């Protein structure tokens, strides 16, 4: 019986090796016209989960044009980070909502 577990254990090890750096999912929330956290560090390949808790539509729009995500009221969206860099972004509808993404290679 214990012998049956060996192939499974091997398979688990093989799987974990085949995914070298696990990409993380980072949640960024917009609530009461505030983006939090205001500054986030991430890596290329990570996923940002944008969560809009407001009854207003917002956007996450990169100043350098790298992304432009529209978030209807009370909705979420995800985007995968493709390029490294310090990206400042804002909401096109409420440009006083501003934040920064530090994306490492």
């Amino acid at each position, binding site marked *: 019986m214990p012998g049956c577990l060996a192939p499974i254990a091997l398979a688990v090890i093989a799987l974990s090796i085949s995914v070298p750096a696990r990409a993380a999912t980072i949640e960024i929330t917009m609530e009461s016209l505030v983006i939090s956290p205001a500054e986030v560090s991430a890596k290329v390949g990570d996923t940002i989960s944008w969560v809009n808790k407001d009854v207003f539509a917002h956007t996450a729009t990169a100043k350098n044009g790298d992304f432009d995500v529209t978030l209807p009221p009370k909705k979420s969206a995800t985007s995968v980070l493709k390029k490294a860099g310090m990206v400042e972004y804002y909401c096109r*509808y409420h440009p*006083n909502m501003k934040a920064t993404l530090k994306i490492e290679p």
Partner: protein
Amino acid sequence: MFIRWSAAVAAAILLSGPALQGAIAADKPTDPQIAHIAYTAGVIDINAAKQAQKKATSKGVKAFAEDMLRDHEAVNKQALALVKKLNVTPEDNDTSKALSKQASDKLAELDRLSGAAFDKAYVANEVAYHKAVNSALETQLIPSASNAELKSLLQTGLKIFQGHEQHAEHVAAELK
């Protein structure tokens, strides 16, 4: 003739700020009055947006009007839900009346314009109007509100409208 008309427009824009504050400054408004003023201010911008949706020609201005309509309707929906929850009946007052009068004059004035002239005048008024409302919220309405939930809704409203003011400034800059 043109100079006189321009002067009248400038005066109307400049007046919207002080008139708003002047009317409130006389007495500290009560919560039912504050609710009425805030709701009226929203309705005014909704009506302005509806006019702009019909008359605006620039794509940016049309999109801005749509954003105003959506946000102000959402704020007013929250305001209505709150007064219902608090069992408060919004109370009409001199500030609300002055605001409505100025707004209907403005609508009539903008209605006589068309094309690029309308777009410019609408956006310029949106900048001035949001400035006036934000200043009233900051200096009069928020400090006077006694109910915590009303205060909090007004504070969210202020952040939204400050966003609109900046958004309107961006749109105005693009029209130049």
